[in-house]
């Protein structure tokens, strides 16, 4: 037991926690013809102890990728190594565990029974009390799972994930469906758990969660990695605002040129009489739109996740990212 701990530790120094190379996953199309490409060639390497966010919209391929990493579904092609072994081997050894977005709980089982049942399968009976306490379930232990709120059920899933004392913790949209307070509580608990040097990989479509919790963010869309960089850089990019206004008929082109000359304006667009300026200089652009350019119906907005993607991929730094990938490929 002691020896395996030691060798595990040495292995951590040399072996990445997670290595995913050219991962692809195709499902048969719903109509029976063609295939749906859920994961379209993902490459990611995560070192031990890193905290990484997989950020992307629904249907981007995040969950499928994590399912493959956990050995729940086989990939169509590509390599996945978890601490140097196959996903299933890593799961069986208790090295990797997860809070699943759609991971089911048995509604007619009590909270403590659920923890004890899964603990028994891990051979981790001695950790039951500690895990119940750390996940804040002590008060709920005797309650039926079906009577617990969404947030409470999520804490139970989290408790189950802690049972094998995993080196890698995977969280698939762990706060989906939670209110703001429950979300904050959840991440506070998570922060405490990562002090132990765990590798944490979580999927989210909340930019704020990636910013608050992960030093590194992998942007995934249409089954591909769109960007993989420190989250700080991402924040700078999405610090942009968009100022949009309607100008007098026929002056849109001239207005766009004027806006483009303003410092801090990175991009301008004109659609009909509607002109927009994107960048950190959105305040100056807004002022100009309302005064010298004679605009009205001014609107200032933060860019959506989609436009953040666009900003990142259009910056030309991320080779191989193409904008014309379609999700469904008929063959």
């Amino acid at each position, binding site marked *: 037991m002691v020896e395996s701990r030691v060798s595990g530790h040495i292995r951590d120094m040399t072996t990445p926690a997670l290595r995913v190379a050219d991962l692809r996953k195709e499902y048969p199309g719903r109509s029976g013809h063609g295939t749906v490409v859920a994961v379209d060639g993902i490459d990611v390497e995560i070192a031990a102890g890193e905290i990484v966010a997989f950020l992307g919209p629904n249907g981007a391929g995040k969950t499928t990728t994590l399912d493959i990493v956990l050995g*729940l579904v086989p990939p169509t092609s590509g390599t996945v190594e978890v601490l140097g072994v196959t996903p299933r081997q890593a*799961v069986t050894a208790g090295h990797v565990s997860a809070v*699943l977005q*759609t991971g089911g709980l048995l*509604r007619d089982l009590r909270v403590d*029974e659920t923890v004890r049942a899964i603990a028994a399968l*891990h051979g981790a009976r001695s950790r039951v009390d500690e895990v119940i306490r750390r996940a804040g379930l002590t008060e709920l232990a005797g309650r039926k799972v079906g009577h617990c709120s969404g947030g409470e059920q999520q804490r139970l*899933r989290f408790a189950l994930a802690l049972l094998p004392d995993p080196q890698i913790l995977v969280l698939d949209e762990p706060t989906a469906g939670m209110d703001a307070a429950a979300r904050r509580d959840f991440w506070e608990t998570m922060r405490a758990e990562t002090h132990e040097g765990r590798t944490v990989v979580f999927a989210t479509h909340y930019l704020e969660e990636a910013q608050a919790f992960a030093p590194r963010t992998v942007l995934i869309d249409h089954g591909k990695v769109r960007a993989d960089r420190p989250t700080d850089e991402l924040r700078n990019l999405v610090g942009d605002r968009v100022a949009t206004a309607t100008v007098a008929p026929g002056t849109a082109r001239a207005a766009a040129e004027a806006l483009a000359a303003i410092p801090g304006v990175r991009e301008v667009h004109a659609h009909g009489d509607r002109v927009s300026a994107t960048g950190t200089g959105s305040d100056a652009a807004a002022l100009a739109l309302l005064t010298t350019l004679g605009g009205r119906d001014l609107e200032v907005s933060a860019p959506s996740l989609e436009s953040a993607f666009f900003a990142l991929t259009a910056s030309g730094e991320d080779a191989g990212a193409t904008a014309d990938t379609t999700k469904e490929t008929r063959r």
Partner: protein
Amino acid sequence: MNATYLAIDLKRQLRDVMNIAFVVGLPVVMYIVFGSTFGSGDEQQGAANVKFYVMTSMAVYAAAVATTSSAGQAAIELLQGWGRQIGLTPMRPADYVGTKVLVSLVVAAGGVAAVFLAGVCTGARADSWTTWLYTGLIAWLLSAIFALYGLAIAQTFRSESSVGIASAGLVLLAFFGNLFVPLGGTILTIARFTPLYGFAALARWPSLEGKVFDTSGNVFQDELWWLILNWVGWAAIFGLLSVWAVRRGRRRQ
């Protein structure tokens, strides 16, 4: 196989009062109804009387219903994503199936015992106590294949109503299994290939040794090897389907 997991799952099943009443109560009622339709029921048939024959049929049905429904519930567990949770533990699909079979066998034991108790109280009779013992053991233990049946059917239809589909299918199989009305002719020939037939005829072996009576008084003879082959063959088919179904249950729904 994990004893703690098994105990927790069993406790959970026994808390489901409605299901237990259905599994244990209905076959008893059916025994009392069918058992009283054949005259006094005390006529000798093989090494036991007619009431013993009807009792055996209903015990087989009770055990099959018990294993089918508890295994069908297992399939619903998988549909609700519990299979994904289990997929994050060292438990293998075959262990999960094995655990479910054991849990359903405990429930089936309750069903068989209840029907036998009703039989004892209403005049079912066999020439020897060993006939009672072997009949009970066979009716109970061989019902394990219907756990696999319930799992396979429910997981194939993949909805909450699938337990109902499996139970309804079981009624049809019980008809072909010669449990409700004595079969004869072509139907009997076809019935010999159906999954409840081998099981039921094996449960009657201690009292009838393969003799089959039809409604017009003819007597046919079943070969023991054929009955065993029927049971083993269906066990293999349902078993393979179940393991395949559990693997499928690890995916998202």
